[in-house]
């Protein structure tokens, strides 16, 4: 009789899953009038889970027979995901209540999806990886189609589902090849098998390529990005905010874990693919966004570009690179949540507007909101001394240290192009005439808190970079130590 | 030559065994229709079939011959392949399930490890005969009947599966003979009585019998999925339906009424009841369950469709799920879990 495996390291996940079930019960018994309560409780549960995650010592421990690993890297990433998810739940609640999607399943699905993301981050086995990924994705498919009565939302859900299922298929195919050639699904054993063979088998490499393709789908890296603009545009805005924040972080974390941990020995093989995807993502992210008039589409292309920069750091394949990525992700998460908080408050006569023309003259009607938006836009463009600059800086630094000079140059050039459309929004807000259709005044406490928090972080990161920097450094070190 | 015979001899034995099972089942089917008419007529103060042969005993034969003599009609616009295959499938499926049925101690054609799962799988395939017939007939009545039956059978299979799980928890084996032998001290119908009742109701729904005979509800759908069938095809459907009834009763007997084990098998009764061989007890118990089938038909009006779904999903499913938990907890707490090979 085998022993019951140790489950203590998974306490945050178990807590979050149980609280999702409790919230579901609460919602089912109380009906949709309890949505507000469920949302607040969901945010609280996410924050409590973040505290539980942070209470971990950071040592590398396993649970469930080595399928689940908790280490410094996992702690850092899970904290990001949980904070991002909690912020989105808080910000999105008011919007959802106004736009007739006031249903208690929304926060519950977000919490369940977050559980999936934490499972992804902690995966130490191909099967655990897939389970986490599906838990996350399935909830996201539903979230994308949450406004089932509108055509755009159902289209977004369907598109995301079909393409997501395809990418899962690719991933599984790759995983099965890897299992076939190494005889194991456990990451540590894969490392051992790779180390024992003089040269990597072609089957393992092919399997790895399929897995990278599947994961690149989830992070929307070019050439697997085509779903992103449509899904970002079609989904309800709170859901889009969630898409841009948490799953992106989790998928990047998973990609890092897979490429550095089991396939660390194959760095030379995967570097070519990552480099290629980094270049095309950066270019397409910058060029594609230029003609967009919808703010959500624009941010979708922006996020494709951000993935390009993240891959730039990954292509370096070094501890510096991973540290840069972690800083980048932390900064990206805050900027994205902040930007979406602004987008969520954009209403015209009570109806949400998404056209960037509506930003015109915002500085005169709502000076504070225009100020934080400008802050985020400058930061996304990478203007020093804002937070976004440091994210890019460390990634580029790692690329240069890894002698990827060409890649770094392309990165700098594309950030200049990208600066164009970010700064265009600033120009609209500060230098254009106020149109007749101005944006309404919004007074949502949660949105204000999140906006102020994100704005302060973005502006003052320069003065207090140490917690994030040292956290990222130790997280990157723990990933490479494993 | 010897090797040839070692190869062929088991084949002959198996074929003989199959024939030995199928022939009694088919005779049983024929006389089940007779019994149904007789019992119902008795319940309704009528005489029932009484003209063909003594006491009308040859009535099933006459019915069969009549059906043979009819013209085979394939409706225009029907899908001939599927149309002809559907009754055949229903009939064959109702017979292949008997392969794993234990008629007595060691008296079983194929004593496989997962006998109960095999039965469950075969019974879940049964829905295809109905749904294919409904679709291929190119008739609205038949189509509606097919859809109803598909939804109904899938719904009730869920709770049937959970009921089987409770029984399996008590036996620790999928093997049907072991399930029967686990009931030597007490038949499962006693400790799991609520499950037995729900199982009985579920098999009524699973075999599309009254009061759940909506797929063929004459009042609204003419004849349901076999509206368009005639002649031998119709006969095959009827044979399949009745043989399914016998099969389901047999499953109920194996799971809850101790299979071939004699009743009252203790104290002074033991020598007496053991005089009767196991297979006879088995047949008697099946007949007992079948009587309930007929009784239900005579006693209850047909359910409405939403009531049927409500019963399946909102009452049986939660209840059986709860009972699985209760059974598992009871077994764990009192230490009654069956000993299982490592």
């Amino acid at each position, binding site marked *: 009789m085998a*022993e019951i495996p140790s489950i203590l390291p998974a306490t945050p996940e178990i807590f979050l899953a149980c609280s999702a079930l409790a919230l*579901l019960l609460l919602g089912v018994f109380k009906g949709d009038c309890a949505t507000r309560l469920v949302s607040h409780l969901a945010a609280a549960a996410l924050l409590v889970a973040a505290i539980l995650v942070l209470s971990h010592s950071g040592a590398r421990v396993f649970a469930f027979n080595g399928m689940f690993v908790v280490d410094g890297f996992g702690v850092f990433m899970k904290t990001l995901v949980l904070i991002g998810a909690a912020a989105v739940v808080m910000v999105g609640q008011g919007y959802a209540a106004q736009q007739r999607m006031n249903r208690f399943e929304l926060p519950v*699905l977000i919490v369940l999806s977050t559980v999936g993301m934490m499972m992804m981050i902690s995966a130490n086995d191909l099967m655990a990886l897939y389970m986490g990924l599906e838990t996350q994705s399935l909830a996201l498919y539903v979230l994308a189609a949450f406004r089932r009565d509108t055509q755009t939302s159902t289209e977004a859900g369907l598109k995301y589902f079909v393409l997501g299922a395809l990418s899962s298929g690719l991933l599984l195919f790759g995983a099965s090849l890897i299992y076939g050639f190494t005889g194991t699904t456990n990451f540590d054993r894969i490392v051992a098998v790779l180390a024992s063979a003089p040269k990597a088998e072609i089957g393992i490499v092919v399997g790895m390529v399929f897995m990278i393709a599947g994961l690149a789908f989830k992070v929307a890296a070019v050439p697997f990005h085509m779903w992103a603009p449509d899904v970002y545009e079609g989904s309800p805005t709170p859901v889009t905010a969630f898409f841009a924040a948490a799953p992106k972080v989790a998928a990047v974390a998973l990609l890092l874990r897979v490429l550095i941990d089991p396939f660390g020995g194959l760095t030379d093989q995967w570097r070519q693919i990552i480099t290629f995807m980094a270049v095309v993502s950066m270019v397409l992210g910058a060029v594609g966004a230029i003609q967009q008039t919808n703010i959500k589409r624009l941010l979708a292309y922006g996020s494709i570009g951000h993935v390009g920069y993240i891959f730039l750091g990954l292509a370096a394949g070094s501890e510096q690179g991973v540290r840069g990525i972690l800083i980048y992700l932390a900064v990206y998460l805050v900027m994205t949540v902040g930007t979406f908080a602004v987008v969520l408050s954009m209403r015209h006569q009570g109806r949400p507007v998404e056209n960037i023309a509506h930003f015109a003259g915002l500085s005169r009607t709502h000076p504070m909101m225009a100020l934080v938006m400008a802050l985020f836009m400058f930061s996304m463009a990478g203007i020093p001394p804002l937070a976004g600059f440091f994210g890019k800086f460390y990634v580029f630094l790692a690329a240069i240290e890894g002698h990827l000079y060409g890649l770094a140059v392309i990165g700098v050039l594309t950030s200049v192009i990208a600066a164009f459309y970010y700064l265009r929004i600033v120009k609209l807000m500060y230098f254009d005439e106020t149109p007749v259709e101005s944006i309404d005044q919004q007074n949502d406490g949660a949105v204000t808190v999140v906006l102020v928090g994100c704005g302060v972080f973005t502006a003052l990161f320069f003065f207090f970079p140490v917690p994030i920097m040292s956290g990222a450094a130790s997280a990157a070190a723990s990933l490479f130590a494993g | 030559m010897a090797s040839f015979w070692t190869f062929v001899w088991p084949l002959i034995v198996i074929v003989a065994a199959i024939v030995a099972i199928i022939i009694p089942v088919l005779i049983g089917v024929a006389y089940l229709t007779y019994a149904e008419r007789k019992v119902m007529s008795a319940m309704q103060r009528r005489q029932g079939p009484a003209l063909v042969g003594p006491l009308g005993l040859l009535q099933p034969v006459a019915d069969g011959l009549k059906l043979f003599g009819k013209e085979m009609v394939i409706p225009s616009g029907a899908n001939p392949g599927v149309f002809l295959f559907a009754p055949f499938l229903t009939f064959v499926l109702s017979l292949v399930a008997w392969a794993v049925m234990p008629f007595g101690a060691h008296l079983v054609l194929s004593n496989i490890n997962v006998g109960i799962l095999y039965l469950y799988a075969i019974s879940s395939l049964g829905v295809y005969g109905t749904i294919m017939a409904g679709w291929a007939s190119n008739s609205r009545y038949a189509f509606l009947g097919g859809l109803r039956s598909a939804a109904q059978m899938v719904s009730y299979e869920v709770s049937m599966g959970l009921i089987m799980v409770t029984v399996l928890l008590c036996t620790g084996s999928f093997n049907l003979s072991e399930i029967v032998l686990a009931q030597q001290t007490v038949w499962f119908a006693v400790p799991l009585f609520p499950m037995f009742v729900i199982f009985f109701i579920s098999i009524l729904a699973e075999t599309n019998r009254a009061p759940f005979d909506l797929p063929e509800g004459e009042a609204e759908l003419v004849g349901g999925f076999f509206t368009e069938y005639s002649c031998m095809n119709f006969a095959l459907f009827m044979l399949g339906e009745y043989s399914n009834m016998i099969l389901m009763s047999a499953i109920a007997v194996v799971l809850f009424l101790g299979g071939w084990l004699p009743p009252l098998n203790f104290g002074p009764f033991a020598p007496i009841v053991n005089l009767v061989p196991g297979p006879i007890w088995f047949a008697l118990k099946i007949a007992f369950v079948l009587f309930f089938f007929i009784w239900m038909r005579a006693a209850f009006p047909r359910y409405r469709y939403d009531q049927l779904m409500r019963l399946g999903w909102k009452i049986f499913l939660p209840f059986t799920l709860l009972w699985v938990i209760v059974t598992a907890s009871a077994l764990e707490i009192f230490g009654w879990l069956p000993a299982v090979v490592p």
Partner: protein
Amino acid sequence: MIVENLVFYTFSAILLVSSIMVISARNPVHAVLALVATFFLGAGLFVLLGAEFLAMTLVIVYVGAVAVLFLFVVMMLDISFAELRQGFLRYLPVGGLVGLVLVVELVLVELHWTVTPKVLDKPAAPIPPSDQVSNSHALGHILYTQYFYLFQASGLILLIAMIGAIVLSLRSRAHVRRQSVAAQVGRQTADAVAVRQVSTGGGV
């Protein structure tokens, strides 16, 4: 041995034919029926491998439930496959190229197939001899211990799927008369029937 081989090749051949029919049948219902046949024969192959539990589960879950619902939907929708195939020729060159690349890759992979020597020492889950432990017992032993995490995670996924289905499809429509069994059963004679003494010729 001969019998097993014979059965194996028969099953495999029919399986291949029916899986081709799944994608080539003109009638969508025929395609689904071919899919059912494919599942069924796949279960047959599992039995030949001695994995009887998996075989039965495949039949129960895929054939008995999933494919039935699939058939249900396909029958009710009026799908014209001819219409779906209209873009076929247009996309054939690109699709064909991608398919070709995949085939070449797979062939390359197959040609290099060797088992790394250390693999066989460390199987993830050693298979107990089938004459000692039935494979349902063997599966049960690792499913609830070693793979407990995955088992629970699958449960979570199914829960999400269920919530999703309800979120996307459940509507509370007005003007629907629902049956309340409790109200029906709880009805008393006094609620429904009133006994009155009617005077002759007086009317009610």
